[in-house]
């Protein structure tokens, strides 16, 4: 069979029939800038940043939504392409308040990156000034419509990635807005606060309330880990500054969640910082608990176990391991019971 070929900036390039131009170029590691494109979802072609020139086509075409055709001649870096993309970035910059200095997303903003990449030196168009009011009537998500560029990534994520179907486009033309059913706050909607919309927002329109003011993107390092809640095993990035988690995001290409998290996985991390944490061994004395050293507490436990084994045999001791802690902890506990105490009375909550 003849290999499917198209011409990318004059160079013969293979593709799989059915691929979009963006997919075909990404497959060979060739970069076309995007903004609204969201992997695994239907392309919307909303932002016009991935425009390319195709021989024979009257207008520039969006690479994200144009299927490759055999022999198609595509140019990605012509002056016309460059100028149009730049113009589109300038229009987006005029669409709202994009004041990076005070924006939570600064340093992690696609629009900021594009403005820099296209060498925009001044704001060419006057900025819109009237915006829908901010919705922050919930504990987790701030919806600042003055920064929204209506790229639709949040809508694609909500409807196609997590399929919670809580938001869509509302109103028309310059009044258009990302709305919940009935255009109320998130709390009065189908929203389940998974925060996927925040994760995919390329600007500062959707930000995390709990992370606000905690750290600039460049001040954190990311540590990969596994979610401590249910048994799905979602892969997380813990964003850490000065040894503390400032926010949690999903590992985009991590199995099995592939970029998704739920409300507990994304926002339920700060229990570890609770003042109520147990911080020292405690021993009950005369009915009350008092603080003790590790040596004292461990000697007491080991001593009492030995005493009970001597008097009643090892089967008079029983233990329950923890299904939330790491494998190695459960391994050690069953080893303690079997090899040291001498009983198989070890169980955990799998049955309950």
């Amino acid at each position, binding site marked *: 069979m003849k290999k499917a070929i198209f011409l990318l900036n004059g160079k013969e390039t293979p593709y799989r029939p059915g691929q979009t131009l963006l997919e075909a170029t990404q497959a060979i590691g060739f970069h076309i800038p995007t903004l609204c494109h969201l992997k695994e979802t239907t392309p919307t072609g909303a932002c016009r940043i991935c425009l390319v020139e195709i021989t024979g086509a009257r207008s520039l075409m969006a690479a994200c939504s144009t299927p490759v055709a055999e022999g198609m001649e595509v140019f990605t870096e012509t002056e016309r392409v460059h100028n149009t993309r730049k113009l589109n970035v300038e229009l987006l910059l005029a669409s709202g308040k994009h004041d990076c200095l005070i924006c939570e997303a600064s340093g992690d903003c696609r629009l900021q990156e594009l403005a820099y990449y296209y060498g925009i030196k001044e704001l060419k168009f006057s900025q819109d000034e009237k915006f829908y009011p901010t919705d922050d009537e919930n504990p987790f998500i701030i919806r600042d419509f003055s920064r929204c560029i209506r790229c639709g990534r949040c809508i694609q994520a909500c409807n196609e990635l997590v399929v919670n179907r809580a938001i869509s486009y509302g109103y028309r033309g310059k009044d258009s807005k990302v709305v919940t059913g009935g255009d109320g706050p998130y709390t009065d909607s189908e929203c389940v606060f998974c925060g996927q919309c925040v994760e995919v927002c390329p600007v500062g329109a959707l930000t995390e309330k709990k992370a606000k003011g905690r750290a600039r993107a460049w001040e954190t390092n990311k540590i990969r880990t596994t979610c401590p809640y249910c048994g799905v095993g979602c892969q997380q990035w813990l964003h850490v500054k000065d040894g503390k988690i400032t926010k949690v995001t999903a590992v985009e290409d991590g199995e099995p969640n592939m970029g998704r998290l739920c409300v507990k996985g994304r926002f339920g991390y700060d229990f570890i910082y609770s003042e109520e944490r147990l911080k020292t061994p405690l021993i009950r004395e005369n009915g009350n608990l008092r603080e003790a050293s590790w040596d004292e507490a461990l000697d007491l436990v080991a001593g009492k176990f030995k005493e009970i084994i001597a008097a009643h045999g090892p089967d008079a001791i029983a233990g329950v391991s923890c299904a939330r802690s790491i494998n190695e902890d459960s391994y050690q506990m069953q080893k303690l019971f*079997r090899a040291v105490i001498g009983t198989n009375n070890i169980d955990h909550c799998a049955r309950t």
Partner: protein
Amino acid sequence: MTNSFADFAKAKMIFVIGSNMTEAHPVAASLLKMAVIGGAELIVVDPRRTSLVDLANLHVPIKVGSDVAFLNGVMNVLITEDLYDKKYVESCTMGFEELKKKVLEYPPERAAAISGVSAEMIRDVARRLAAVHPAMLMYTLGITEHICGVNNVMSCANLQMLLGNVGFECGGVNPLRGQNNVQGACDMGALPNVFPGYQRVDNPQAREKFAAAWKVEKLPEKPGIMIPQMIEGLLDGKVKAFYVFGENLANTEPDIRHVEHCLSSAEFLVCQDIFPTETTRFAHVILPAAAWSENDGTFSSSERRVNRVRTVSAPPGEARPNWWIFKEIAKRMGHEWEANSAQEIWDNEVSQYAPSMAGIKYARLEKNGLQWPVPSLEHEGTSFLHKEGCFTCGLGVLAPIDWIPPAEVPDADYPLVLSTGRRLYHYHTRTQTGRSQGLNELLGEETADISEADAEKYGIEHGEMIAVKSRRGRVVVKANVTRQVPEGLVWMAFHFREGCANWLTNPAYDPITQTAEYKACAVAIEKLA
């Protein structure tokens, strides 16, 4: 799970029974919903109209505890209408004749009378399932938390084998496991009958192997007791010392009043935890432990995937990693253990002694982890089990199963069924989620979810405080009148101490697994004056 979460997003036919995964396993549900909006067919079997039903082609609202009768009815249709996978059954399974004899006792009309759905719906389910191969079956605690939990699970397996669905991508029998590392705790042998890697304690070779590994003369051969027996043992004195690591038994076990009586009778109770809980109130010694993100290690997920967990910060105060605490106790009892980190424990012990995890070493877990069995260092892991119906144990066993009713059914005094489960915004007894800022704002108290019909019958308004009582206890909670719940059912969770469903639940257990029947007991509701 026999299969992987990646299959959820690719499956063509999905059969969900006893799983409210949109709340208990939200990301798994998202993957499944992606498959459905992409054209997959979805059948949801659940007494409640859970939110997954919004996307389902068919909702089968069976009565609580009627699963075996319903599944036998479906299999009856598969056999009588000749819709089952004969080739698969002949070559991959055994026991078909016995199964056939049993399910022929459950014609759709009889199954319908027990399960409360129509015979026509049962036929519809069977025909739909037979039309697409493979179908993927998922279940959660709606299947297991019954006195017939084992039978429910075997019925799910029967159905999938009869349809020839086990051993293929996007097929299989897939229990969604509740806790982040409940799979791992099983894999590690925190069970009374098996060593790490499911090697049985009553097998002399296994005992010999572990005795050598752990440098001890001998290991106990008699399987140990399970949690309910441990708790009862505190009362009758069979258990003198009870070591509870990271469990809040005082809230999670059925019949709280009785459980607390047992815990308060303990001669010596050691609790090892990250927070004071309702259970630590009874402890004689409390050992403060490191939490998630405070030590390196691994979790094993539902899909048998061993994933890395990494350290962000040191535990607070004097709190220490759990593995260290166990090692220190062992030392004080005369045993010096070599491993001095989670990695050393895994690389030098777990993967040495558990053949199904022999190929898993920390160095191989940097990114996506590995799904066991991973028998060698070259092996890439196993995304689904029993490939092409070649069962690891030989032939798949089709087991004839009879339906039995729940241990406690409604009567004149307690005319309603209470079923329990989890809600989205909290996890179990809220030791973690209750201390994570914001989640209490989204769900701040327990409710009793009741149907519109029962609300009308008892004259109860949505949001009104009501009493729910069973033979074991009484709680006062807010009524949540909802279309999710059918008439005759009260549905509650156990996230809040006040109004915890476990003041009411029935400590009746599956005879094999000792899993409690959290999903069914009899209650009455009262309008408060």
